[in-house]
């Protein structure tokens, strides 16, 4: 139950950060915080219910690696934007399809 509350808190903090911070780095960090909350929820679920250890842990590891990949892509985008002098969300105007 405690880990559930912690997970919810983490996700909420992440959402708050995404919605309020203008700095791209901070937004990315907030997304990572949200992702951390989600991973914690998954891990806590596996631990709490005692589900079949092999597959549950596998899924947790998978989510962790997806989170890592996502962070890598996000950071790459961030670097590209910073090179163009965009460090804040409201400066990104010409990323149109």
């Amino acid at each position, binding site marked *: 139950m405690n880990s559930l509350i912690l997970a919810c808190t983490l996700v909420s903090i992440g*959402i708050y950060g*995404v*919605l*309020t911070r*203008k700095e791209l780095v901070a937004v990315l960090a907030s997304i990572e915080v949200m992702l951390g909350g989600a991973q914690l929820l998954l891990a806590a679920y596996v631990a709490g219910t005692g589900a079949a250890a092999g597959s549950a842990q596998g899924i947790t590891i998978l989510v962790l690696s997806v989170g890592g990949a996502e962070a890598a892509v996000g950071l790459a985008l961030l670097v590209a934007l910073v090179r163009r002098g965009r460090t804040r*969300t*409201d400066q990104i*105007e010409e990323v149109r399809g």
Partner: protein
Amino acid sequence: MSELLGLKTELLRTIPYLAMLVPLALTALIAAGVRVWGKAAPWISLIGPLVAVGVGAASLAKGSSGAFVWISSGSSVLQLGWRTDGLSAIMLLVVGVVASCVIVFSVGYMHGERGYVRYFAILSLFTAAMCGLVIAGDLIGLFIGWELVGACSFLLIGFWYDKPSAADAARKAFLVTRVGDAAMLVGMAILYNATGTLEIRPLLALTPTLAPGLVTAAAICVLLGAVGKSAQFPLHIWLPDAMEGPTPVSALIHAATMVAAGVFLVVRMWTLFALSSQASTLALVLGTVTALGAALVALTQTDIKKVLAYSTISQLGFMFAALGVGAWTVAIFHLVTHAAFKALLFLTSGSVIHGTGTQDMREMGDLRRSMPLTTTAWIVGGLALAGIPPLAGFFSKDAVVSSVLHAAPLAGVALLLASLLTGAYVARATRLAFFGTSRAAHPAHESGATMLVPLAVLAVGAMGLGFAGPAIAHVFGDKSEALSLGLAALAVGIALVGAAGGWWFAGDAGAIEGAFTGTGARAWAFVRSGYEIDSLVATLVLAPLSAIARALDAMGDRVLVDGAAEGSASLARRAGDALSALQTGDVQWYGALIAAGVIIMLAATVWLVK
């Protein structure tokens, strides 16, 4: 096999409908190839009237009738049916022959006009509508034909639509006849309400059982429809203006066929009409007033077509007077002869206009030298119109006058006076246009063969149809009255006196009327304007109507309609302005809204589930 045979006889019985369907199909065919047909168009459209003549001749021997259900809603059933009897057969023959002559005449007359093919498409449509009108077995089918001929009349009067006077005349004709049409529709509604059918024969069979007041109301409404279509006082004002259309159109629509549809309608509804003495009296009064009044106006006109237009109004007045005294076979007889000689006169005037380039008789004179054949045709038509024996008009007009004189002596005397004036205006127009000295700016030339052949055909009709009186009476199972020699001599004498007066009056190119001064000149101008009825209508009808329209425009249209339209537009614009504040383009603002939405939905779910 027997079923198949049954179907075949069923199809054979519908042959009369071809008189309407063939010209209708030809209209579509011509209209589909406006740019293709060129000079072939008249010959394609000629097939329609020829079919009508064939059907008419066939129905003269053996009539038929039938119907198919058009709209069925609950217990009310609207049928479209046909009924060919002697009356339809005679009308089909008149329409077919005159339309054929007019189409052939138009080949030369309309040569090189812009809209040549369109012209023949509309003529074909007119033939279809007119045939549909005369063979209709139901009032609803008759009314459809009735409105369609009106629409064709509108289209053809306004044929030169870029000329403002033609466009105005077309609108005027459409609106004025609409007054009569509205009355006719009311009459149909009354009859349908009372009898539960619009099929003419059962409806007429039921009319004697109806309340007299109802019968009178219906008969007067139907009569008003006829009055509008046949240009009788006070709804005659559209016909003189309708002369803006091409002259062959005037011959076909505004002399021989469409304007006679009013007489046809009254005869078709005769059982109803005969039950109401008020309606008969109204027809007699309107007919007599029109016959006399229009003849006087015709005497003062200088436009050759206007003379013929007022003459047509006057002659239709003769027919209505005959209807008013119950002599409907005589009215139909006069309708037939009038169709021949008036179409002849109109086509002749078309030939004159084509040859001289003017309609003003003051600019003609001495055409008998340059246009001898046209002059001969005119004289034949003119003598027939004036009622000189043995031409057609003599027999039919004499029959009309003697019937009216027996039943209503005063009206009969008025018609004799109208005959006097008829002789006078014919003689005046003849002398002004064809005799005396030439006042033309350009030398006139005789018209070509396509224009002269129809004149010859109609001239034969104008000479010979007078002897068809007994045959027409026979078709209706009626005995034709023997000609009363005393009255005939009197009528001819009156016509000759009138002609002599008119001839004298037209001497020196109409110098006599030009020499009028003071009251005389004012009276002449008053009559010439058609008794100022146009300006009277403008003051009494148009001015109040436009005032009401303007008031409605100011109140209803500007405030309500524009208010509603512009109000909703401005509401949408303002709502857009307000809502566009939400569209900031800021991702985080959108994210916040999405998050807020999720929270609200979660809260709602929790609250509802609890």
